[in-house]
């Protein structure tokens, strides 16, 4: 699955080749290696010299979503991406980010290091979609830095995971900033490792992590979710898992670390099977068992 219209994609990379860059007024879009050379200040953000990936610097308000698409198209391609996105002060931006394999059996590797910086008062709705082949290996590792008063809504959705997915997200929040992280994963013959690390650094920062995990067809999902409060802040962790069969596994390990007496961290978690009653109800409306399971799973992940 590629983005429907490549012309609407601001950065399009297939395998190692940048196919399309669509710059616009107030938004700098370029491959990361070029940005690394053009803007010396990015060196401290990239850490290492990037080989591939995108650099997006939003300096002015735009009223449509910024779109990126990075795809695997050739057999045994190994991508090693470094992405950097910077949203300047008080801008409200929406981004749609797609990473995928264009065919099922490519045995590809997609390694992505990402850094997103939301400057003071900036707001970002970041919708991140993954669709992979059943033999790909995918390791996204994203860091988000929210300056004072910044807001992030991050929705990661993966209903077609690879053979192995190692998904790391770390979020650091300064004063009065807020994050809402939602991760929806439907693991199908997959091994999925999740690691979320939310650091509530500033006073009155707020964060919520919501995990909706479904494991089926001998899949295994392991999730380590950590919230640390360094200041007067509030954090909530909400993990829910559903097992579709007896051959799959989900393990959730919540970790709340409170280092300030005025901080409040809460947690709720449940893992269970699909409700028999819901299944029978849907079948009594004419849906087959498989259709009923799919409908319940989709509803659970959309919640």
């Amino acid at each position, binding site marked *: 699955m590629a983005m429907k219209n490549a012309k609407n994609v601001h950065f399009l990379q297939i395998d190692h080749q940048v196919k399309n860059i669509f710059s616009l007024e107030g938004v700098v879009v370029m491959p990361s290696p070029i940005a690394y050379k053009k803007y010396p200040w990015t060196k401290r953000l990239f850490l290492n010299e990037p080989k591939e990936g995108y650099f997006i610097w939003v300096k002015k308000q735009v009223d449509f979503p910024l779109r990126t698409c990075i795809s695997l198209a050739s057999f045994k391609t190994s991508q090693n991406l470094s992405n950097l996105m910077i949203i300047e002060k008080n801008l409200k931006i929406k981004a749609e980010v797609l990473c995928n394999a264009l065919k099922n059996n490519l045995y590809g590797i997609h390694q992505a290091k990402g850094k997103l910086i939301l400057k003071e008062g900036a707001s970002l709705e970041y919708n991140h979609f993954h669709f992979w082949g059943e033999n790909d290996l995918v390791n996204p590792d994203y860091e988000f830095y929210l300056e004072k008063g910044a807001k992030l809504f991050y929705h990661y959705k993966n209903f077609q995971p690879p053979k192995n997915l190692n998904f790391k997200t770390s979020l650091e929040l300064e004063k009065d900033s807020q994050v809402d992280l939602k991760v929806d994963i439907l693991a199908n013959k997959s091994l999925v490792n999740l690691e979320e690390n939310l650091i509530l650094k500033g006073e009155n920062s707020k964060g919520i992590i919501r995990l909706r995990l479904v494991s089926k067809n001998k899949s295994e999902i392991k999730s380590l979710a950590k919230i640390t409060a360094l200041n007067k802040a509030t954090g909530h962790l909400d993990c829910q898992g559903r097992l579709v069969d007896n051959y799959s596994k989900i393990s959730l390990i919540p970790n709340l670390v409170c280092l300030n007496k005025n901080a409040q961290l809460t947690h709720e978690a449940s893992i269970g099977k699909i*409700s028999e009653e819901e299944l029978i*109800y*849907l079948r*009594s409306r*004419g*849906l087959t068992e498989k259709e009923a399971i799919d409908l319940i799973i989709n509803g659970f*992940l*959309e919640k």
Partner: protein
Amino acid sequence: MDNYVKNVDKTMLLQIKNLKVKANSKQILKGINFRIKNKEIVVLLGPNGSGKTVLAQTISGNPHYKIESGEIYFNNKKITKMPPEKRVKLGIVLAWQNPPAIKGISLENFLKKIKKAKELPSSLGNLNILSKELNTNISGGEKKLSELIQVLALNPKFVIFDEIDSGLDLRNLKKVAEIIKKEIIDRKMAVLIITHNGQILNYLKPTKTLVLVDGQIICEHQNYKIVLNTIKKYGYEKCKKCPFFANRPSS
């Protein structure tokens, strides 16, 4: 073809023969026998825990209820072991007493998925619940209306209403009853109504009344008013002793 059996009454839409059903290892139905003709309106009365919902769920094919012995025939076809989705295709639809919440899909989108009928009748009026999640965060009355809408969308031949009237105020009871009358009974579908208080019967006027007590049908009568009045006056214990008791079906 094995499902078509010769020794059943072909004029009947539904036939239940000596049905014994267990739930969680407990015997609930202890040899049920009754028949429903095409276009017939039947009411099933019984105290709490007598097995009314188990019977309704068993007819609709809920595998949670284990059939120990006995047979169910629909349109001369044996459906005793048929899965629920296939029974719906034959035209058997149950309106649940307590439908579970299904999150993430609106009633409107769910109807698009299941709908067999061309369009919903205008008698349903303006339906605010269409945009709401299926059976989620809606009132008891709205749940009943949702069940009724789904029943109509499935274009059934035979409908079981499991306490469709429970928890409804008089205005909503009348509304639900009028829709059932107009869209189901007047369109010649057969109906089995399970009810406690019986108020809805004054609108639907059933032609046969069955009384279920302790997993057995102890009375079959043509006049629902007589049976209902007896129960209201003397309770179900009286039912066991009344002269109509002799009329209960033996096979």
